[in-house]
């Protein structure tokens, strides 16, 4: 979407991600999504009187990995209390980092070559989950409410970008790239549908070059699509408001996915005063150099570097090929592409097969060793397997494992390339004399006709290149 002429949007994103720690941020309870309500709880995360928090070192590891991947400075930090009353918050305050976050001052480079500043990436605890029965399904007006504290105390990192994003597409790209980074660090599973990543967008509009306009914050966007739509809606709303002589009020807004619009949640004047202060139950966090070095050494390569390594294997990649590379990187399956390239095979073909066949059955890639993939593609390149046959073999290995050559042999794929194919081509020439004579006179387009016929007769088991070779041998 483009904004009306003479307008520019300014967007900053706050991304919350749950960390894949074994236990919660301040207690030993399991950090697990989907358990029976109120089963992963203890006196600490339930905020029982007298209980005290103890910081989980694994959460600090993950937070530092995220900071390092985002080129942040890691500094001594503190924990504060953010005070507000809400039933799903067991202590009626949230432990969060405030003026001294563990990570600050980084950046994220996007695939479109733009750079977005990372102001901070700090640690905090998640709240429980309320279910409101009756009324509108929200707290106000509900007949009764149920609270599940399993999520209460789950570690989060909140990543705050600078106001550097200028379009909803760029916001989406940022969110997607960040998701890839979080997955690569091992800190997050990136599962938006389970709420393990959530987005808040700060949106304002201005004339290019003018000072920043008044911003509105859209809370709790749960998918890349909602993020993009909500930002577009909000920017247009603000432009129409200003064009109509109105003024944008600083406020928090709610995105209604079904109606496709934002609405006021609360205005700035009504904003809670969170009365932040240092949590006296916790001590300062200052990971020493050795701890930081250990974390840095264990950091896996990030999507940008991995993407570049795959793209470097492709000659003048098309837009579609770049999209396929994105799928490969997103699924973390580039080892197959590198395996094929190392064996002297066709990297572009490998990218295509991974982005389609492997992506379609990604839960079973453990059944497919890299060398099995490499040998399947080598057979395809040598013409021993057609594209369709190669896909069939890959699908079979993914489902059940096994040796690709044996599977091809068992299905009778290999014979087709020699005797059977020659006989089939000879039969077709005999039964299509007109097409054959036009082909012999130099009309190469007729090759496609014969290939199509061969495919029909062999139920797609022939190799197109091999058919052409047979035709040319008889021309």
């Amino acid at each position: 979407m483009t904004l009306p002429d003479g307008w520019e949007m300014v967007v900053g994103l706050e991304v919350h991600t749950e960390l894949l720690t074994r236990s919660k941020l301040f207690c030993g309870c399991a950090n697990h999504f989907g358990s029976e309500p109120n089963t992963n709880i203890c006196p600490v995360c339930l905020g029982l009187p007298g209980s005290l928090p103890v910081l989980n070192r694994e959460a600090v590891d993950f937070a530092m990995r995220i900071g390092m991947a985002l080129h942040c400075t890691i500094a001594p930090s503190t924990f504060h209390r953010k005070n507000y009353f809400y039933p799903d918050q067991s202590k009626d305050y949230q432990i969060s980092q405030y003026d001294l976050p563990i990570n600050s001052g980084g950046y994220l480079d996007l695939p479109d070559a733009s750079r977005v500043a990372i102001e901070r990436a700090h640690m905090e605890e998640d709240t429980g989950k309320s279910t409101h029965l009756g009324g509108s399904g929200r707290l106000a007006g509900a007949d009764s409410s149920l609270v599940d504290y399993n999520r209460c105390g789950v570690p989060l990192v909140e990543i705050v970008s600078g106001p550097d994003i200028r379009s909803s597409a760029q916001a989406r790209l940022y969110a997607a790239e960040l998701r890839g980074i979080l997955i690569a660090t091992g800190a997050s599973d990136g599962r938006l549908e389970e709420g393990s990543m959530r987005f808040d967008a700060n949106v304002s509009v201005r004339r290019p070059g003018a000072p920043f306009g008044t911003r509105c914050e859209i809370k709790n966007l749960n998918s890349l699509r909602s993020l993009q739509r909500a930002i577009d809606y909000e920017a247009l709303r603000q432009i129409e408001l200003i064009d109509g002589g109105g003024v944008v009020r600083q406020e928090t807004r709610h995105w209604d996915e079904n109606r496709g619009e934002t609405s006021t949640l609360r205005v700035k004047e009504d904003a809670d005063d969170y009365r932040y202060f240092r949590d006296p139950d916790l001590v300062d966090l200052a990971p020493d150099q050795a701890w930081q070095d250990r974390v840095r050494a264990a950091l896996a390569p990030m999507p940008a570097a991995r993407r570049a390594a795959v793209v470097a294997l492709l000659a003048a990649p098309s837009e579609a090929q770049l999209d396929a590379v994105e799928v490969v990187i997103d699924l973390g399956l580039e080892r197959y592409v590198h395996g094929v390239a190392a064996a002297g095979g066709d990297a572009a073909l490998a990218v295509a097969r991974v982005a389609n066949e492997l992506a379609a059955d990604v839960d079973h890639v453990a059944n497919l060793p890299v060398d099995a993939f490499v040998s399947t593609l080598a057979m395809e390149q040598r013409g021993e397997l057609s594209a369709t046959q190669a896909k069939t073999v890959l699908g079979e290995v993914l489902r059940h494992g096994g040796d690709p050559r044996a599977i091809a042999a068992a299905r009778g794929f290999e014979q087709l390339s020699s005797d059977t194919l020659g006989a089939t081509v000879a039969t077709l020439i005999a039964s299509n004399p007109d097409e054959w004579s036009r082909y012999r006179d130099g009309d190469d387009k007729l090759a496609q006709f014969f290939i199509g016929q061969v495919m029909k007769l062999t139920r797609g088991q022939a190799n197109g290149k091999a058919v052409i070779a047979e035709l040319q041998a008889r021309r």
Partner: protein
Amino acid sequence: MKSATQIAADVRSGTSSATAELERTLTVIEQRNAELNVFLYVDVEGARAAAAQIDARVARGEDVGPLAGVPIALKDNLCQVGVPTTCSSKILDGWRPPYNATVIERLLDAGAVAVGKTNLDEFAMGSSTENSAFGPTRNPLDPSRVPGGSSGGSAAAVAADMTAVSLGSDTGGSIRQPAALCGLVGVKPTYGLVSRYGLIAFASSLDQIGPFAKTVADAALVLEVLAGHDARDSTSLPEPAPRLVAHVNDGVAGRRIGLVRELFDGADESVVASVRAAADALRAAGAEVVEVSIPELALTLSAYYLIAPAEASSNLARFDGVRYGLRVSAEDVTAMMEATRTAGFGAEVKRRIMLGTYALSAGYYDAYYGQALKVRTLTIDAFARAYQRVDLLLGATTPSVAFALGAKTADPMTMYLNDVFTIPTNLAGDPALSVPFGTGEAGLPVGVQLLGPGRSEARLFAAARVLEIADGRP
């Protein structure tokens, strides 16, 4: 009344039994609790079972620990599994903790028998135990007077010979002040020496658990059991527990002790006289006593009454009727929380929540809470400078002896001034104790206060023992 040290020795040797000691305690409670209102809950069955178990273990020849069979009273802001824990507040009505405070685990491991829970000012906010939702506790030495507070019940339990020792908590003087008013030894340890896990927080950065006892040796014995690192409290000191009992009779020869003008100025004449007499006694035992002034201490009362309420306003937020304790039904969740807190908290608790909320509010934080933190830093530095010149400091614990019930309830500020001498150490995080020395008005006991740098408890006990002997309790 036998000391805890004697009870443990008798139980270990078989001269007495945990059951016999407990029954004696239960008898005294039976005789005096109705009048004094010391215990909110006596765990007769649990205590009898625990005592029987200890006796069985002694019979089997096991070492049951340094507090073998010693009945102990617990301030009712300490969590004990299955035992009602109220903080003397209606808001915790019916709550029984599913876990033990670390200090209770350690006492039980050392062979002590937990007898029951004692009265306190609601959420430990007060200096007379009159702010209890369950009525005031009376001073066993003169039931028309207060025992002090907030740990007034735990002090009275020992003063009334119900138990030889008890636990309190001290945020601004809540162990030392009642110890002084009841004629007991009361110790506020170094911040972090004793785990706070399971202590229902008033002001987390100031709270410490400590013992009441009739003798210095008993106080050292109990603190030695309580002290030491606890992984469940992030503010717990990492070092192993210090040896205390072994140093009780080390004396003060060669020690430099500072008599702090700001820690007795304005106190009653009899209190000042006791402090000066204590200085003489320490001198006589070989210490060098010098008069010092720490002007920064004049700022500490104001700073304390911003920091402690600020933390309390947050600590007490969780009492909202959602998960445990009192719930007053209302039309929606927000109204329910409001109705519950309105009905559940007493006036002093509400006052401090409001003070603290205000001190932390946007636009006021810098002027109040922020300013108080600066005073706290000044206090820490001032004490540190003083301890470069002297080993210990000496002053009064309270401005007066025990006062009459109702005498100071009309004006909160009058009550707050009771803590003027005890608050500075809490802000600094340093240890201090109160030990009886001499008497004042109506023959009531006076407490003098000994203060030291972090982890100097052994030194404090040695000096307190010198005063104990000089005061006629060899």
